[in-house]
Structure formats: C-alpha cells, structure tokens
C-alpha cells in the first residue's frame, strides 16, 4: 500500500520535473505542444484539488502536526519555504523572462530538493508528503490554472504595472498577516 502510494507521488514529481525541463529547453514554442501541456496541467490541478479537499484538510493537518510535537514557527518555516521557492519556480517556468539565467532555475530546484531531503532525513517520508509535496502540487496547480484557463501571464502582468505590483503586495501582506496571526495566536480551526 505504502509503496503504491509513494510510487504515485514519485511518478507525479518526475512528471513535473520532466515537463519543467522541457519548458526550460524552449521546446515550448509549438502551439500543439503547448496545448498538450495545458491539458496535463489541468489534470494536475484536478489531482491537487482532490488532495486539498479530501486528504489535506489544513486545520486538521495542522492540529495533527502541533500535537505530534511540531512548533508553530517550524510549520510556518517549512510551509512558507516551500511556497516561496515553488512560487518563484512556477513563475519562472510559466513565463520565463528572457533575462533570467537558467542557473537561477536550477538553483531554485536544488533548494527545493535540499529542503525535501532535509525534511526526509529529519522526520521521515510522511512529513515530506504532508508539508512539502502536497502544498507544492497545490501551489503549482493554482498558478498554472490561472495561466491556462485565463491566459493570465503573471510575469507580464506584474512587471508592467506598478499599481498592480503594489496592490498584489498589499493583498499578499494582508493575507499573510491574517493567517500568521490566526495560526500563531489561536483560532486556527
């Protein structure tokens, strides 16, 4: 059972990895290929939503982690770390600016893999799945979802409007403060 479950995850991660490499190799230009990729992303999105709704109920998950001995700041660091690295990664994959050297992308990948390895060694595979793989898939999926269905080019959208940049930063800050406050000072359920 465990092996089957792990295999599923490994396949998904490899698939994401493989697709990302393809993006980086600029095989990205053919329209047909783009369409295929989009379908795959939507499939990923659906899979992630399934995990989000059925298997990964955040408040219950957090209660479990706290009860298992994790400190609140530890969970924030792990989840936050994952989200920041992955958000950057996805943005670069989805809309790679020409000026971005591929070394940045490789470094981001490397940091993510190191984070996973670190968690794996420290707490075992369970925590990697709970804190790393699931949020990553969800994060990936949400960004790709907007890109695919609404043709919303994050990079262009953000880069070309100062007002948008400020608004998005403010919204993110308000959300971050709200959730951090709730999580650190109670009422997380």
């Amino acid at each position, binding site marked *: *059972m465990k092996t089957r*479950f792990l295999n599923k995850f490994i396949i998904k991660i490899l698939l994401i990895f493989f697709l990302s490499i393809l993006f980086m190799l600029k095989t990205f230009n053919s329209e047909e290929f783009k369409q295929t990729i989009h379908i795959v992303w939507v499939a990923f999105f659906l899979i992630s939503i399934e995990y989000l709704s059925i298997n990964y109920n955040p408040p219950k998950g957090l209660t479990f982690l706290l*009860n298992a001995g994790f400190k609140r700041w530890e969970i924030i660091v792990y989840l936050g770390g994952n989200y920041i690295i992955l958000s950057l990664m996805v943005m670069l994959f989805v809309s790679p600016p020409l000026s971005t050297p591929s070394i940045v992308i490789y470094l981001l990948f490397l940091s993510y893999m190191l984070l996973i390895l670190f968690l794996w060694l420290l707490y075992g595979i*369970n*925590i990697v799945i709970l804190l790393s793989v699931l949020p990553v898939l969800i994060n990936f999926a949400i960004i790709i979802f907007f890109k695919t269905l609404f043709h919303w080019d994050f990079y262009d959208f953000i880069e070309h409007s100062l007002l948008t940049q400020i608004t998005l930063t403010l919204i993110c800050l308000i959300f971050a403060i709200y959730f951090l406050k709730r999580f650190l000072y*109670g*009422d997380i359920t």
Partner: protein
Amino acid sequence: MGSMQITEFSCNFIKKYKNFTLGPLKLSLKRGKITAIVGPNGAGKTTLLHCLCGLRKPTTGEIHFPPLSHLAIVGIGDLPELFSIKEIIGFFGKNRELNKSIAFNLIKKFKIKENQKLKTLSSGQRMLCQWIVALSLNSPEALVLDEPFIHIDIVHKNILFDMLSETIIKRNIPCIISSHNILETDKTADIICFLKNGNLSDAIEKPCKDVFWVIEENKENEKTQGVIYFKDKVVKTVPKNNKNIKGEICDLQEITRLFFEGNENENEIPE
C-alpha cells in the same frame, strides 16, 4: 498558554462569537480525575476544549493549560487519512516520547491492520487509532477528549473506559472529556459539569450523587422503571413499556434543564 511547569490546570475566560458566547467560564481540573463536560449539541463543548488546547484564542480571560504538543488528544482534529496507523505511530515517535510496544499491543487488541491506510478504515476504527496514539504517549501533561466514544462499539468502549481510568490514575494527570451521552460520562467521569448555551454549571463531584439514574422496580406495581434522581429527589420516571427506556433516562435536555432552569414540575415529583 501553559508550559511544562504547570501545576494548576484552570481557565477563566469568555469566548465571543457573533451569535454565541461561551462563558464567563471558570473551570479547574484536578490531577488523577476525569472531568466531564456534558451538554447538548451546540452548547459550546468543542469550543471550550479548543480554547484549552490553544486552537482558539479566548476573547478575554486566562487559560492555564499545557500546549497541544504536551497533550494527548482524541476527537480534536484528525489523523491524516493518507497514512497507516503504523506510519503515524512512527511519525509521533520521532517528535514525542511514545511507547511503541503499548501502541502495537493496542493495535492488536483493537484488531486494526497496522499497514492499512486510515481512509480505508471505518469511522470507529479511525477513532480507535486516535485512542491508540493518545494512550501510547509516554508523558502527556493532560488528556483532552472530545466526544471520544463516538462510532465506537460497546465492547471497545468498555475496554477504553477501563484503560482511561487506569491511565489517569497511574500518570496522575487531569483529563477533560466532552460528551452528549450522559451514560458514557457517568461511567468514566469523577466530576461532571453541565454546559448549555455557553454556560457552565458548578462541578458535581462523585460520589455526591446529586444526579444519578437507575433502573429499579416500582414498589407499587412491581414493574421495572427508569428513574432519574436529582439531589435525592426523583425527577423523572420512565415506565417499562417505554421501549426506549435508556434513551429516556439519558434525556440530556431534561437533566441540563434542571441545572439551568430549575425543576418546573417539582410539585409533580413523586415521593
């Protein structure tokens, strides 16, 4: 929030929501005793326990209770359904002191397949898995149980009643348990508090027998009947021909009403 050095487990707080206020609520938990919070649905039992565990922040007041990482919990949150009980035990064992032999004995006792994912287990078995983790922890500072016997069959319930009492006494830690089932709490609890609409009654410590319920024989017609006593007075009798005799006896609304509104039918109480 509490720390490792907590000597007194108590709270005195108010938690306000738009349509509901819990408290002012003053409660003190004793070591080696099981305190039961009994009340109907929506009374505020889970909110109370969440506040104690630090999952909800009280609007005003103080809570002296250990943090979630020092507690054993059942019914608060859930175990991840993607994993098997064996994996969960392993996971807990990395961060907290957990007696794996106790855990695996319980797994065997409850006949749970240790490699089976939780999502494929029944609701009762999933609840038993929470019990296994809670009872296997080596040094929890308190036990917090929210409707912990829900979905569990009577055989396992009886095992858990015994194990719970034994654990609390042996470890000399406080235990708070919430339930809407008066019969269950009667079997396990040393102290009972009634909660209704966010208001908590005074604690009733056993064996004061302020409230108890028995099945006895009616002397006049020699028929069996269920009787609820409150402060040595019979407040309700249920004749034998009532098919749901136990259900009637543990009519929680009736008992909680006594604590919060008084007995309106006092004149009709039989001698």
